[in-house]
């Protein structure tokens, strides 16, 4: 069979072995040394094992072996079904034709055509036909492949290491999920692309059918088919042991793993097969934060007509120290792109006028809906009822929203209702009140708060959409980052069925709004809105928090439930400055890493070579160099700020609200 494109070797490892007669005669164990490869052939991924041509060198082995020529044949288990499928043969020929030079052998009755008829012990299969991989360890690791037609291939022993790298390679094309019944067994899902599809279907669960397809089908069928495999393995290797089949108490973990499989592995967004192996990240640099940007700093960055000058520098200052509260009301409008940085006072005044008109036009739309109309508009009614309920449950301990009939509550309600008119398709989704509350608190003005909220929602929109694409993407990206930063922890989470990082859901949905004290949320958000030092900095914030918790989680052997509980209960116990320092340090660590996997640099936007980012990076470097001390003016700023600090306190408690209605 002629190949149309040359096959691409995704993974290759020489020095794997097939043992024969493992259980009967331990001292007469024979080994066939060979190659294991993962090959991409016209979009199909094929795993193949080829023995080296009768060249088993016993000196390489860790265990006893006798002459390779005598017992190299893998003997079949008697009760395996012999299900001839020509496709495998074809598959094999195809790969074979282009990749290996090998002498032809004749092998007796192979029984299964996954085994190469012409070469003792060789086999190959399309990963699409793989059902499970059993991972065992006996001083070295060995893998046993079980195919969907119940064929079990001979164990591949990694006497010279490399099993993890192989599995990593395999994960590029298939989904490997630890079996709920046996931690040594990795169940194979569909191709990741197909899985990612399924995840979308799952989220689109207005359609029960699709969910059913996904839920019933892979889970039940996998489990059904799987029990056959387990039985088989036990028969073959551990006849005395019987497995407890009762589902574990924490079974929802397994189910989740099944249901959100797209999140479970380090998925590659790009089609290439990139094996992320251990990358040396080097040491984590020391990072220092600065004092918040004071009113004076802010003012210094505006020319006489109000244009903000040296924006990159200003953004860096904000990134490094945040803003003093008095500056926020003005600065957030720029950070959130409500005001263009290069606009003049005059232009901003005009903009605000226009935006005020526009806001009230939309506000009037829902305000003027009569009760009769509302009865016939179920969507508006639903949005309204949700908003009413949630406004009453948002930041009620904050002075600004405390007590009954607080004007802050009315504004929160009105802005959210108006947002429904602004984007009726999205409407109101729980979590949005959390995103608005700090903005309204800072703006103390209905119209400004609305438009700043609109900008913030532009960034967060995908999180709230029907498909929750934003959540899905972020969880996958976070998983990719975490895997690079801390493979051991990532593996631990995987083993606890928590690899899809469900416990970070609330963090990501509303950007840590519920995790931090209110004032710290303001700090974090303004730092994030600078867009520095890289894309998706908030994911590094997640990594930083997890980095501080991982030891506890692993030492205490937390399982799925405990991890979820532990993370939920971090709420209001986190130190924002510590987190920001660590997040930035992690960023520097990653940035300085030489062989960064593409997937990671893509997530963080480290490949982008726009003028803007070059400038930012270089300036960032200057700011970061340990020699650079705070500017001399800094102390003065602080003195100046103390006066403002009082003002700031006062405005917090006064609930000063601009009513425009």
């Amino acid at each position, binding site marked *: 069979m002629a190949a149309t494109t040359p096959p691409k070797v995704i993974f290759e490892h020489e020095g794997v072995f097939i043992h024969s007669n493992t259980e009967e005669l331990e001292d007469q164990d024979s080994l066939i040394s060979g190659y294991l490869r993962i090959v991409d052939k016209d979009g199909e991924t094929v795993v193949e094992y080829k023995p080296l041509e009768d060249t088993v060198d016993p000196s390489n082995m860790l265990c006893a072996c006798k002459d390779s020529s005598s017992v190299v044949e893998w003997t079949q288990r008697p009760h395996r079904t012999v299900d001839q499928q020509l496709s495998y043969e074809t598959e094999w020929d195809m790969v074979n034709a282009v990749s290996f030079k090998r002498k032809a052998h004749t092998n007796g009755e192979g029984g299964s055509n996954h085994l190469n008829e012409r070469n003792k012990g060789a086999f190959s299969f399309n990963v699409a036909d793989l059902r499970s991989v059993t991972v065992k360890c006996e001083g070295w690791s060995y893998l046993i492949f079980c195919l969907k037609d119940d064929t079990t291939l001979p164990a591949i022993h990694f006497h010279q290491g490399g099993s993890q790298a192989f599995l990593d390679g395999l994960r590029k094309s298939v989904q490997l999920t630890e079996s709920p019944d046996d931690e040594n067994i990795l169940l194979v899902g569909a191709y990741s692309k197909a899985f990612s599809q399924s995840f979308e279907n799952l989220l689109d669960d207005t359609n029960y059918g699709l969910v059913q397809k996904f839920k019933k089908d892979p889970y039940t069928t996998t489990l059904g088919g799987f029990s056959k495999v387990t039985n088989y393995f036990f028969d073959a290797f551990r006849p005395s042991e019987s497995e407890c089949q009762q589902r574990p*108490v924490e079974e929802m973990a397994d189910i989740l793993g099944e249901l959100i499989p797209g999140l479970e592995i380090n998925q590659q967004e790009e089609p290439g097969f990139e094996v992320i192996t251990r990358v040396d990240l080097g040491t984590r640099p020391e990072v220092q934060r600065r004092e918040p940007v004071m009113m004076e700093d802010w003012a210094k960055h505006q020319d006489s007509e109000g244009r903000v000058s040296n924006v990159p520098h200003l953004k860096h200052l904000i990134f490094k120290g945040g803003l003093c509260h008095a500056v926020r009301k003005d600065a957030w409008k720029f950070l959130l792109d409500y005001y263009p940085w290069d606009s003049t006072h005059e232009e901003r005044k005009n903009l605000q006028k226009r935006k005020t008109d526009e806001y009230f036009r939309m506000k009037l739309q829902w305000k003027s809906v009569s009760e009769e109309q509302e009865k016939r508009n179920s969507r508006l009614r639903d949005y309204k009822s949700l908003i009413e*309920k*949630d406004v009453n449950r948002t930041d009620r301990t904050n002075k600004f929203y405390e007590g009954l009939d607080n004007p802050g509550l009315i504004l929160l309600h009105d802005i959210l209702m108006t947002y429904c008119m602004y984007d009726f398709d999205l409407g109101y989704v*729980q979590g949005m009140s959390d995103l608005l509350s700090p903005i309204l608190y800072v703006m103390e003005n209905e119209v400004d708060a609305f438009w700043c909220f609109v900008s913030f929602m532009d960034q967060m929109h995908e999180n709230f959409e029907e498909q929750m694409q934003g959540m899905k993407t972020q969880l996958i990206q976070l998983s990719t980052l975490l895997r690079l930063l801390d493979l051991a922890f990532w593996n631990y989470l995987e083993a606890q069925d928590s690899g899809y990082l469900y416990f970070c859901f609330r963090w990501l*949905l509303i950007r840590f709004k519920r995790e931090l004290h209110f004032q710290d949320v303001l700090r974090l958000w303004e730092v994030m809105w600078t867009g520095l030092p890289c894309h998706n900095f908030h994911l590094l914030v997640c990594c930083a928090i997890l980095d501080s918790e991982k030891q506890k989680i692993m030492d205490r052997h937390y399982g799925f439930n405990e991890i979820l509980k532990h993370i939920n209960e971090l709420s209001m116990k986190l130190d924002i400055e510590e987190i920001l320092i660590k997040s930035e340090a992690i960023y520097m660590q990653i940035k300085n890493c030489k062989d960064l996997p593409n997937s990671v640099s893509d997530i963080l936007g480290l490949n982008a070579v726009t003028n803007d980012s070059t400038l930012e990076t270089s300036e960032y470097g200057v700011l970061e160099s340990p020699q650079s001390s705070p500017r001399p003016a800094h102390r003065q700023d602080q003195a100046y700020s103390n006066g403002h600090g009082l003002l700031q306190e006062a405005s917090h408690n006064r609930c000063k609200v601009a009513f425009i209605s």
Partner: protein
Amino acid sequence: MSSKSSLLKVILLGDGGVGKSSLMNRYVTNKFDSHLFHTIGVEFLNKDLEVDGRTVTLQIWDTAGQERFRSLRTPFYRGSDCCLLTFSVDDGQSFRNLANWKKEFVYYADVKDPDTFPFVVLGNKVDVSERQVSREEALQWCRDNGDYAYYETSAKDATNVSAAFEEAVRRVLATEDRAEHLIPTDTVNLHRKPRTGAPCC
């Protein structure tokens, strides 16, 4: 009793705002926090209790009710031993939605026999005077659906909250006992008694 069966998982389901989180908090911490946030994601709390001489750990799961988040809460339905269907007596719609909640639960929890699965119905906020759902209506619904226990609760003033959760535990244990008697090796013991021997998995 085996350690496995002493952990019971119950899940609170119902429309947003009916008081699920408040009920959970009232039961576990005996507090009512009127400043409570609306739930985002999934949370759970554990509580140890003794019912009819048996000590169990109740694991109470609480989720966000909005339609949009369905796919993120439904995976947690699996493995539930009991489902607490919750509505608010001052919200007729939340009562009418009970059937949907039940359906969603049965579907995603993969309940093998919905007719015998223990559901308990909670009509919350009985402290509120403007009722939209009468006790009779609620009881009728419970009868129609399979003799579910019905409790009128108030997370605010603690009315019936413990009673409801304890009933949930009783129902679970009763179902488990029935199931045990189906195991042929189990000696005939038709009277409900605290289990001593750990039922082997």
